[in-house]
């Protein structure tokens, strides 16, 4: 298959993936599959009046939605869809994805601060507390995956899983990365920064119209990107029998995304002090144990 054709198919599959995630997001709230739901909410937000708060911070307010979606797009560029099908093959890709996604939190703080509203600001600072809770787990889980591949390149990380996927080789690392990815995308039960019903939308509370669309679209892309990252780091990426590589990537990504929402639907929202406590008291020792276990397995 020619490279151009496979890129076109990947593009179509990716757009379908975004629609799929949007469907799931609505399902996780209402429990029903509404096929036209995402289009309805898009049109509703598109036709909405642009309301701004009093004395808002212009630069932050206008820049935040753009930063949010830009960092997600940046992190997509380094994730491989199939063997050799990656937009940017960085030598430090495993670190880069983390570096890019830190700016999700920066963007949420800027959003919360700029609108000059109480709920927004609490939501923004909660985003930072959440990052402090999950960032160690993410970095250490990635470190263990990198240790096995002996490279920070994404292609090498996937190829290192050819004998055995990382989910079996380092299950503790998988669990840590999985839940940390949910916290990174602030999905329920970790949706503290935007807590609907508690903070009335939190960091996004004062954003309406097209800016809100950018945030919502960026969030859908973020969920898809993180599902792709989970499948690349721990589920063997494109590896699989019979089907072409990129199809395996998308099947795994879709399953991970669906499981994110399934988990979120059946768990109550976590309290932020509990999140910090678990992040540091249990997740950090577990991540250190994981690194030790992988180190021993590698030396055997």
């Amino acid at each position: 298959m020619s490279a151009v054709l496979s890129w076109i198919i990947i593009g179509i599959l990716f757009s379908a993936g975004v629609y799929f995630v949007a469907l799931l997001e609505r399902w996780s709230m209402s429990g029903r599959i509404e096929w036209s739901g995402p289009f309805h909410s898009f049109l509703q937000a598109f036709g909405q009046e642009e309301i701004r708060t009093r004395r808002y911070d212009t630069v932050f307010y206008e820049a935040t939605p753009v930063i949010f979606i830009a960092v997600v797009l940046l992190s997509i560029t380094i994730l491989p869809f199939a063997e050799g099908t990656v937009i940017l093959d960085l030598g430090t890709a495993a670190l880069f994805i983390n570096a890019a996604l830190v700016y999700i939190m920066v963007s949420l703080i800027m959003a919360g601060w700029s609108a000059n509203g109480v709920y927004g600001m609490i939501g923004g600072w909660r985003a930072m507390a959440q990052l402090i809770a999950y960032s160690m787990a993410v970095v250490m889980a990635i470190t263990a995956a990198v240790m096995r591949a002996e490279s920070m390149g994404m292609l090498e990380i996937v190829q290192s899983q050819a004998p055995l996927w990382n989910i079996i080789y380092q299950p503790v690392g998988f669990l840590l990365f999985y839940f940390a990815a949910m916290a990174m995308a602030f999905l329920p039960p970790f949706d503290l920064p935007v807590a609907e019903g508690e903070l009335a939308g939190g960091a996004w509370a004062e954003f309406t119209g097209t800016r809100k669309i950018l945030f919502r679209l960026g969030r859908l892309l973020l969920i898809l990107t993180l599902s792709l990252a989970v499948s690349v780091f721990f589920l063997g990426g494109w590896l699989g029998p019979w089907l072409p590589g990129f199809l395996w990537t998308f099947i795994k990504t879709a399953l991970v995304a669906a499981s994110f929402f399934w988990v979120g639907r059946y768990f109550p929202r976590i309290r932020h002090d509990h999140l910090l406590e678990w992040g540091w008291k249990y997740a950090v020792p577990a991540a250190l144990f994981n690194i030790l276990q992988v180190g021993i397995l590698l030396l055997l």
Partner: protein
Amino acid sequence: MMELRITLLVIMGLIAIWFGWRVFRTNSMVRSAFSLLASMVAIGGMFLVMEAEFLGVLQIMMMGTEMSIMAIFMMMYMMDPGGLGQMDMKHQEKPSIVVAVATGGLALAVILLTKWGRIISEAPTPAQQNHDLGIEIMERSMMLFESAGFSILTAMVAALATVLIIHNNYKKEN
């Protein structure tokens, strides 16, 4: 190619300086912190232009978290964090100008008096750089990094112990 890189390097440097200047031109603590973040990200961009990929990505990653944490501390301890109360945020203006000029001059002297050697036209590949950095940390600089790590850990434990004393006393009283 070399000209393009040097042009990009100069642009990134100017962005870093401009945002560094913006830090002091605002009364809002959050704006100030995020201006510093933008300046640091531009420095990360300079590393990337100079093909030091690991350093660049690390700089951009670390500064995102660090500057946000700094922003919340500045908000907590300043009387007018939003800068909306028109308060004057400056103090000890003259001594700080003297110190800034002196340290700036010192930095310039170091830059001008150091023999930098010739410009390297071919940098090692990013993967090779990561490998070399790992060997460097595990061999020659190991003692340095280990002692730095140990001092940070000691500081963390000491800070927690201090907080716990206050926390426990508060519990007893109430």
